[in-house]
């Protein structure tokens, strides 16, 4: 491979061997245990029947709010739109000051400066998609430039996409190198690696891509761009949670997980939190290790929060639309 793995990873020998060359990488990824589709989907469906009530639900709602990467990734985005999203991020429910702020705001690189300005001093992160999001179809120099643009504008987190074409054609080294390169370009910014699981076709591929990203230095692995259907699903997230748990067993490090796209309701969000809790472990139940990439989810969380506290159902007119 073009560049050696980052020296700082300090991976155990078995894992650093895996990244020695294309052949080793391939052998390692194909040597991972398979994923049985029916089994993982059944497990996900089984856990989804957990019934979270009362205080546990309120805790889950507040925790989920604090894990939201409030996202706008539209061609029609404007400075005004981003500013109003940032206002929402700071105070999700203007009537209830105790509602925690979200984890981050997620925008395109050219909107980073606006978001940074609007969130200054709040501790809320600014995440930027990069690397020719969402398709990833460009040259490496362009992807690096894209990343550097975001970081220079003040992004604290970079959400890159992998080259799915390269991955699906078995050129794992190319994908690895790109992630390593982008990680380097991130500097201090956290790197979330978007696998775009909807294009990877199988859970085996999701597991391999998760390990590939972690081997290359990802701080987070993220399901989707939100531009492809299916986006995040519970079973895909299960596979990724198993991967970060296994990675922790192997290395002692905890990589984060971010499902993105398609999570719209509190019920959905709680199902994800249950999966985090019971598959990866409670150490992952924090915004440092788990995020929701979402936009409309936040308002449902706020409505459900009100319903829990007020004892009656709320309506969309009682939460803000930005």
């Amino acid at each position: 491979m073009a560049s050696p793995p980052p020296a700082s990873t300090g991976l155990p020998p078995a894992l650093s061997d895996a990244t020695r060359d294309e052949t080793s990488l391939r052998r390692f990824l194909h040597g991972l245990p398979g994923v049985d589709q029916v089994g993982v989907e059944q497990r996900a469906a089984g856990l989804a029947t957990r019934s979270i009530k009362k205080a546990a639900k309120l805790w889950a709602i507040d925790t989920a709010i604090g894990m939201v990467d409030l996202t706008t990734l539209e061609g029609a985005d404007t400075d005004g739109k981003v500013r109003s999203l940032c206002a929402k991020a700071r105070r999700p429910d203007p009537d209830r000051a105790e509602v925690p702020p979200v984890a981050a705001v997620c925008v395109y690189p050219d909107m980073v400066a606006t978001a940074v300005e609007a969130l200054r001093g709040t501790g809320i992160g600014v995440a930027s998609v990069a690397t020719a999001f969402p398709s990833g179809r460009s040259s490496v120099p362009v992807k690096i430039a894209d990343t550097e643009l975001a970081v220079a504008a003040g992004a604290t987190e970079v959400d890159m996409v992998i080259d799915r074409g390269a991955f699906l054609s078995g050129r794992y080294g190319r994908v690895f190198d790109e992630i390593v390169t982008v990680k380097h370009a991130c500097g201090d910014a956290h790197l979330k690696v978007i696998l775009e699981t909807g294009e990877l076709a199988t859970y085996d591929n999701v597991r391999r891509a998760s390990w590939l990203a972690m081997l290359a230095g990802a701080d987070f692995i993220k399901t989707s761009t939100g531009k492809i259907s299916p986006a995040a699903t519970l079973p895909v997230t299960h596979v990724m949670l198993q991967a970060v748990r296994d990675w922790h067993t192997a290395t002692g490090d905890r990589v984060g997980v971010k499902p993105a796209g398609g999570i719209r309701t509190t019920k959905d969000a709680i199902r994800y939190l249950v999966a985090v809790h019971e598959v990866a472990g409670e150490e992952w139940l924090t915004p440092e290790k788990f995020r929701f990439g979402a936009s409309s989810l936040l308002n449902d969380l706020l409505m459900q929060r009100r319903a829990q506290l007020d004892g009656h159902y709320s309506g969309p007119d009682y939460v803000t639309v930005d």
Partner: protein
Amino acid sequence: MWEYAPAPESRDIANLRPSYRMFLDGEFVEGGGEPLKTVNPATEEVLAEVSTANSSDVDKAVKAARRAHERVWGRMPGAERAKYIFRIARMIAERARELAVLESLDNGKPIRESRDVDVPTASAHFFYHAGWADKLGYAGLGPDPRPLGVAGQVIPWNFPLLMAAWKIAPALACGNTVVLKPAETTPLTALVLAEIVQQADLPPGVVNILPGAGDVGAELVGHAGVDKVAFTGSTDVGKIIQRTVAGTGKKLTLELGGKAANVVFDDAPLDQAVEGIVNGIFFNQGHVCCAGSRLLVQESVADELLAKLHARVSTLRVGDPLDKNTDVGAINSREQLDKITSLVESGEAEGAQRWTSPCPLPEKGFFFAPTVFAGVSQAMRIAREEIFGPVLSVLTFRTPDEAVAKANNTPYGLSAGIWTDKGSRILWMADRLRAGVVWANTFNRFDPTAPFGGYQESGFGREGGRAGLEAYLDV
């Protein structure tokens, strides 16, 4: 720490009544036996008083069933029988929630399981067999197979409603009438099923349900008016029944105990294998005759698998069966809890390494924390005897031949599991495992269309599918 708040299903839904009566010849009547008190194993409180049968009740029930068979049910066109059985299937579904809660109260199994497995599968069983009633000529058992007559059926406490369905549905579809004895500790859902039978307007005597202890069962299987005996339960009792029936010409099917091997190869989909192992032994508190109670794991992956297994088992939530988040409920009775405890002690005494989930247990009720024994050898009691509880014995192997030899090294032969990503190895193993059901890369799957039953001392005869009809036809 994120503590899930209790999410109990309301027990009011069960419509629990202070007393229940037996169902004989279309009526609910007092039995001549000493009434029994059925207990909620999760709280040890008495749920209800249930009348039991004495020998004269058994005689009346068998005679009622005989009359019903000769006058109505045996001569009714299959298409008409079918419609009655379809009604039962639908009514079970309509009263699903009530039945699920009642089952969890009486049996101790988690509501998640009674709601998602027992009750829907019971309904499905009636639905499937209903369709057979007018198609028996196509079952490959001859052009016009005839019913046997009166079926005496005795069922266990682990799946009270579901086992009743497994027994009654094929019997009725084939044109037999039924006298069924539910288990002493779990009579309630069978008596609600009797209500459904009444609501479905089945002719009196076609289905009779007589609660009671083992003596009622013995009376029933020994009754001269019974043409067919079907029993699900322990191998010990199965042998007694086979002896009782010997020489009488009664047709017999037995679904008995097991000591299934769940074989995990090093190329298995490990996370799903862990799920399968957990489902295999902790489903229904391990009160499952086909439970995967012996884990055979390839040495090269044993440590990794065991670590994953411990982590996963630690997440199992043991407690109130009515809590929707409970994974492992109550052991069905004090007696069973004592048996599990004593076998676990034997495992420790024989030198196996015990690991028990650190999960909290309720203070009242019969509970046993999920337990995994490593370093088990074939000679230990925990590797040979059916524990019928949430206790897994882990053994290792090196080669496929060794796995087969160890898996088959038991007088039982009900079920087996295989976990590997290699298709040809699955089929090779499936050929060699001497067991009536082989689950590959899955475990504990049941379906009315799929025959279920054992080899060797796990019994004979099948339930479900076309093969299951043979048990209730004179062929």
